[in-house]
């Protein structure tokens, strides 16, 4: 019986431990090589709005207004109605094929998108339309590599890491690096998945195997992080959390909406002190 239990125990979901709470993780980079390989295979279907990334495209209806409103609130610039983010410098970490970077650039911001997978960067670059060429750039680097470049230190008004931290090993140093690149009082936006039973059954099993919202194997439940833990990490790294909201996805209509429940997806906006 006990042998059976031991062999089965490896299938039990393990709660993700945060560096600040228990054992140290010494990793040089926050990027996992297996994750990188998985995305390499998917880079060609990024811009099909009804394809594998349909949910990320429709998520823009939530996250662009979110970023836009928080940025405009914290600034005193007068804005024009078509390009309200003119003058803002933004960094999109884990930009993938550029689904989030392009709308931000279209709203007038000067955007740099970075991703560890060079195929994603090529896809994103290929997709840039001529009118965006002067304020949208992509770089095939990781966040850590960017931090080593002195030009980018304290350069950005806001850094967005949307649907990214659930693929990262060391979230603590990730946030630390974000803090290095942000101007004082700059904003950090994170959207990710919670680590709950609901997110396991709905966010992983149902999403990947039943509704096929994302390809199977996209997410590893062990890497999901609870909002409370993420808030602790933010505060440890010198941020104050401004907004902490739940989001819910309707797979039938392919539409997202804000929710009081953070059981599956949530979004946080934090400001550097």
């Amino acid at each position, binding site marked *: 019986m006990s042998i059976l239990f031991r062999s089965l125990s490896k299938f039990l979901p393990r709660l993700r431990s945060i560096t600040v709470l228990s054992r140290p993780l010494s990793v040089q980079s926050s990027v996992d090589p297996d994750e990188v390989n998985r995305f390499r295979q998917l880079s060609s279907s990024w811009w099909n709005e009804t394809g594998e990334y349909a949910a990320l495209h429709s998520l823009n209806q939530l996250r662009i207004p979110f970023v836009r409103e928080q940025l405009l609130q914290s600034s005193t610039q007068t804005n024009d109605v078509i390009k309200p983010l003119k003058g803002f410098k933004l960094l999109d970490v884990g930009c993938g094929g550029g689904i989030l970077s*392009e*709308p931000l650039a279209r709203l007038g911001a000067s955007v740099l998108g970075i991703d560890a997978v060079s195929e994603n960067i090529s896809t994103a670059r290929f997709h840039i339309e001529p009118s965006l060429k002067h304020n949208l750039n992509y770089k095939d680097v990781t966040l850590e590599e960017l931090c080593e470049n002195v030009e980018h230190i304290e350069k950005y008004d806001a850094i967005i890491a949307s649907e990214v931290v659930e693929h990262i090993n060391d979230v603590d140093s990730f946030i630390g690096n974000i803090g290095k690149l942000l101007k004082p009082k700059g904003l950090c936006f994170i959207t990710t998945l919670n680590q709950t039973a609901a997110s396991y059954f709905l966010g992983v099993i149902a999403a990947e195997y039943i509704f096929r919202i994302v390809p199977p194997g996209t997410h590893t439940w062990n890497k999901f992080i609870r909002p409370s833990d993420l808030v602790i990490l933010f505060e440890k790294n010198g941020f104050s959390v401004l907004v902490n909201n739940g989001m819910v996805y309707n797979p039938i209509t392919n539409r997202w909406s804000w929710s009081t429940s953070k059981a599956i997806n949530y979004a946080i906006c934090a400001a550097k002190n």
Partner: protein
Amino acid sequence: MRQLLSLRRSLVSIRFSSYSVSSGATVSHDWPNPPVPAENVDVTIAGGGLVGSAMALAFAASPFFKNRKIVLLESQSKLPNVSKNQPYSNRVCALNTQSVNLFRKLGAWDLMKSVRVQKVSRMQLQDEKVNLQTGLLIAADGYQSSIREMAGISTIQWNYDQFGIVATLQLADNTPDNVVAWQRFLPTGPIACLPLSNTHSSLVWTVPKSMHKSMMNLTDEQFVDEINKAFTSDTYKQDVVVSMTDRLRSYWQQIIPASPTISQWPPTIINIEPRSRAAFPLSLLNANQYVRPRLALVGDSAHRIHPMAGQGVNMGFGDVECLVKVLEQAVRDGADFNSLTYLVDYERQRQAQCLARLLSIDALNRLYSTKFTPVVALRSIGLSFVNEFSPFKKFFAKQAASSTS
């Protein structure tokens, strides 16, 4: 809406180019190498009728589209001469509250009310073949939309066994304030009379297919006689139904206080405007998809309804309002305004509303097409009840006017 106007293609000062193209214009999707150097535009509206023009006006009035190039394609090369002194056109529409609000917002309402010509600036009328490469194509080309056919969008449609006859009517001199719209449900189909001014009204008469040829072949005097007879004759009433309705009415008036109804006679027609009589076949149509990548259908190309409730063009204006709102939201969110995600939002909202309306008017048409006495009794009693019981009447009037307040 007490005063109904004749709305023709009165174009106001708009920052767009209008091209006149031959009716043999083709739409092709040549990518990435078009055969002939093409002009790049952001939005092309195919069809310069009521809905297409309203669409162009809505874009012109929107601050989110002020830097975009919008093109309106229309096959008639002459701009219509809009003036108060010209005779009324025989194609008239009744605008509901929502449509009026739309035009008020677009700044066109004052012009429409005064029916005066305003100088159109920056218009190019060209009679040549033009090759356009567009970001978004909006099809406003009517119920036989060639764009919809070319896109291979399937439709639900059926023909009514009816034709609609329109004409502009001259009223007798002793008609009081002509502000009431009349509709009478004959067994052959509804006949409606919409006021244009104190001396003129517009006719929309639905007749069975078998009758329309003979109606069109009548002389003007005979036709006018037929209209007057249709409005006043009692031969259509079934005695049984009349007595039943009267009896029931006397019962419920003892329980429910009847709201005072103003009784008025329908206007007497003395003449019709020369050459204003026309007939066209009626059908119901709903496109199964209102959008495709880079394509949106608005107006009759997406849905066609029986004219009896005056809803057709109002639904088209509703499409215009919804599509512009959705596209403005797309621009506010930094999306490429061709983004299918936003076009689908438009489709979902409009399909639900339009299909519901199409089918309920269709049901009403069927209800009034029968001579079967029990049904006639039920509907007569129902109609009298609604007419006298004011909360019901207000509800239906509000639905017809589509007012959102």
